[in-house]
């Protein structure tokens, strides 16, 4: 088990700040995803952990030891690259055994370790072919195998799933999670895909423009976003966000686009601490109930169904209302799913427990 720490790490390229003062301790033996949109600094962060980039300021620590200026080979880690970076002039076996060869492990033991890992990855019969003759999924396994054979303490993965087709991506995603759990190796995986991150990560580091937006267990990011960016980035379809005013502090009533949402007394103290009268309100699609769903005491308004997307066991409903933005609601209620179609008027109820309020200026969550 190995602990990776970023101690106020900053990386600048000229005037461009790619990574801005990240101070994070990754959990030992966990599957951590570094998530964020293109250009948020996630790959740079990973490459600084790998030792392929040197931070402009700050330190990278592995097991409490500063390794900032150490080359990759002194860090006992391995990396799976986005392009896989397999050597096509070498056989799969030579690719996978390269790290051991560099360590000076003799051929016999090398082969034993390669075959052991190849069996786990189900590529035993491909060992003597060049990687270029393998399918995309098999090449992916070889790249992973090359990292696993050396049994490093940490495996870094830079968008390893992005080149795979959808079906294979889902398969490999599950397999990555399985392998990580079996080996207990610390995985740090960079992705722009929030679904990959939500589904298999133990913890997520969400970055935007080089800054940490939130770091924690993946469900925390979903249920308790620290700011509007996190709320918006995590979850698909995205959370419903709209401008609102707190019109009546005593009763806490949001006057959003002419629709009043009375919020529950339970959170009244928290709402009262909101210093401004205008706020951003966020409600996840599954917290927007349609028709008879939800409790009658919840704030309600009416809307028109614009588009219905069918998934079999649940539907997405895109709704038009007096609010500026169109809203998305998810429903798995069979009665709702059978009765609603485009153009229908429907009552929308909002579960007040799952309403998020954000500062409209800074985007910070109020609670």
């Amino acid at each position: 088990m190995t602990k990776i720490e970023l101690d106020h790490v900053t990386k600048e390229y000229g005037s461009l700040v790619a990574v801005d003062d990240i101070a994070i301790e990754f959990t030992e033996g966990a599957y951590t995803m570094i998530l964020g949109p293109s250009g948020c600094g996630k790959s740079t962060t990973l490459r600084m952990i790998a030792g392929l980039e040197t931070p402009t300021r700050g330190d990278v620590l592995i097991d409490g030891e500063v390794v900032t200026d150490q080359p990759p080979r002194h860090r006992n880690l391995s990396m799976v690259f986005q392009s896989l970076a397999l050597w096509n002039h070498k056989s799969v076996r030579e690719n996978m055994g390269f790290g051991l060869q560099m360590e000076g492990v003799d051929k016999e033991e090398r082969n034993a370790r390669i075959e052991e890992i190849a069996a786990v990855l189900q590529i035993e019969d491909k060992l003597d072919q060049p990687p270029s003759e393998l399918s995309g999924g098999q090449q992916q396994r070889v790249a992973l195998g090359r990292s696993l054979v050396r049994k490093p303490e940490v495996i870094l993965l830079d968008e390893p799933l992005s080149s795979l087709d959808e079906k294979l991506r889902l398969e490999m995603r599950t397999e990555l999670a399985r392998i990580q759990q079996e080996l207990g190796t610390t995985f740090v995986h960079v992705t722009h895909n929030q679904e990959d991150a939500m589904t298999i990560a133990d913890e997520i580091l969400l970055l935007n423009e080089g800054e940490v937006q939130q770091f924690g267990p993946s469900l925390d990011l979903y249920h308790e976003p620290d700011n509007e960016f996190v709320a918006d980035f995590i979850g698909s379809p995205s959370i419903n966000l709209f401008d609102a005013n707190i019109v009546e502090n005593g009763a806490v009533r949001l006057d959003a686009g002419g629709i009043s949402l009375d919020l529950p007394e339970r959170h009244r103290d928290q709402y009262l601490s909101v210093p401004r009268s205008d706020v951003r309100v966020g409600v996840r699609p599954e917290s927007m109930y349609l028709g008879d769903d939800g409790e009658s005491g919840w704030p309600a308004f009416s809307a028109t169904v614009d588009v219905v997307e069918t998934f079999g066991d649940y539907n997405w409903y895109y709704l038009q209302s007096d609010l500026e933005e169109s809203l998305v609601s998810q429903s798995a209620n069979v009665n709702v799913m059978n009765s609603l179609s485009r153009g229908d008027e429907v009552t929308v109820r909002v579960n007040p427990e799952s309403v998020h309020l954000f500062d409209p200026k800074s985007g910070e969550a109020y609670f």
Partner: protein
Amino acid sequence: MSFADQFAFRDRLEGIERKGTLIGIALVTPAVALVLVTIVYPFLNAVQISFTDLGTGQFVGLEHYQWLVSHDGFWTFTWYSIVWTVGNIVLQGAFGIGIALLLHEKFFGRDAIRTVMLVPFVVPTAVTAITWRWLFNSSYGPLNYWAVEFGVLSGAVNPLTETSYALATVTLVNVWRWTPLVALVVFAVLQTIPQEEYEAARVEGAGLLQEFYHVTVPHLQGSLTILGLLGVLLTFNIFDMVWLLTEGGPVGVTTTLPVFIYDIAFNLQNIGRGTAVSVVLFLMLVAFVVAYFQQEEFKGGTFG
């Protein structure tokens, strides 16, 4: 489909095939004709001349070949040719790869150097030869002047006229001329090697030398194989540079086979013997090419 239909269909297919073959023949005819006229005919003619005494027009059989086999000079000059060719290829390869690796690093003025580097390759051979002869000249050449001035040498020496240095010097001048081409080709290939392949090697524990051996070299292999083939053929046949620098001297130590051929055919006016040497030289190169193509790289090998 009835039988009749099937036959009709097959006939039509055969028709298309016949037509395709005709078009194919029509397309290669000009190329084949050109090769016949410019290569095969002159070569056969040369073979014929090598069996003839051009002065009398008499068929002399293997006389010219007997002469060259028994001529000590022929074997010596063949040896010089091999030394010259191997020296050129090895040095051009080493310097070319070295320069390309340096240019691959990013540094200030790199683009300028890359352009200036090509100058030796752009300058005509005659100018190159005259320039170097002047540089090496023992009475007015600047190299000797500086060497003596700074006490490196006690007296002026022109390496082009010294039997122990002449072949090496001619080789170096030719290396100077051709290295930029090798460097340029290698540099172009280096830029196609994905950075992540180096990074993967580095993460797996490779140092700089191992990165070079395990990543760079395999990527270069294909281009170097072709460069080596062309290089050997071109270098073995080079006449102008050697002739312009030394005319094959002093005392024949820089006489490679092309120089020897020129000497016999045009200075000694024995076209028959000269042609016989040419034919032998041609056969040597053919043998080399055949041997060269036995390498793995040309066999559609599994890795590459």
